[in-house]
């Protein structure tokens, strides 16, 4: 199981709800991560920790703290459950 893929799924779902699907897809595209209109990530097995930080930094830059707030707890939960490091942006 790729924990980072699961983390990315959480970010997509939460940002869809916060920003709407169109704006979310644009921001992801700018960060080099392609998702379709249903939120499926292209090449999900290639997601790495750096990708999580990259998209969170992009969201923080473009939208602000609230885009991080909405993903903070589920990402922390996933990190703790899977004993992996938290994304730097969440720390």
């Amino acid at each position, binding site marked *: 199981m790729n924990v980072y893929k699961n983390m990315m799924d959480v970010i997509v*779902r939460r940002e869809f709800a916060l920003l709407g699907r169109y704006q979310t897809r644009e921001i992801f595209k700018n960060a080099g991560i392609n998702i379709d209109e249903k939120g499926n990530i292209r090449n999900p097995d290639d997601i790495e920790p750096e990708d999580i930080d990259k998209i969170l930094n992009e969201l923080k830059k473009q939208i602000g703290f609230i885009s991080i707030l909405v993903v903070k707890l589920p990402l922390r939960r996933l990190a703790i459950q899977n004993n992996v490091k938290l994304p730097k942006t969440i720390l």
Partner: protein
Amino acid sequence: MSEKYKKPEKLAEGNYWVGYTNTDSAFRTNAYIIQSGDEIALIDAGSAWFFKNMSAQIETIVDVNKIKYFIQHHQDPDLCSSLPFWEKKIGPRKILAHSKANILIYHYGVKSELVNVDFINWELQMPDRLIKFIFMPYMHSPGEIMTYDTKTKVLFSGDIFGGLSFDWHLYANEDYFEAMDAFMEHYMPSKEIVNINMKKIENLEISMICPQHGSIIPGDRVKDAIENMKNLECGSYLYE
């Protein structure tokens, strides 16, 4: 956002959404009115920042001087800080809230009579309908209440079932439960408390849920919304 949502919207007989659609915030505030005969109850009066716009909206559908009650689901400023402005406009009225909320609402400098719903049998008789108050302690305030219109079966839920979104719709879209989780998981204290309180409404006939933030949950999604709340992973202290 549709232009039409800059105007009040009728939800059911005597029930209107009168919120202010501040487009630059994900933390939108909804307010509602119950109009019954010659009496009006304003539910979660709103923020001081939005008073001018919101009161102007309300005046397009009712005579604001007929507001008899302010029903406040808890004491936070986003729903109470307009109260002194309302009083300046129409004079003191009756503020209905839980006693644990009213002792704090007093500090907004209000002159209205503070009516504790826990001391009036959790009910308010209006001319053509009975309004019931449901105690929801610690969700998120110790004196949290919901308001249930027994005539229209509309449940006004305060912060509970609220959501965070810039992509706001008056009625919940397909992504709304994620928006709801994003807000609720930070503000709700524990899964145990949420589940105890959800039992109070899970068998209630509900035509729609009207939260103070986010979107209205239509009747066909009410059961799913309650189930979603019961499964909410909350208690943020666990992760801080």
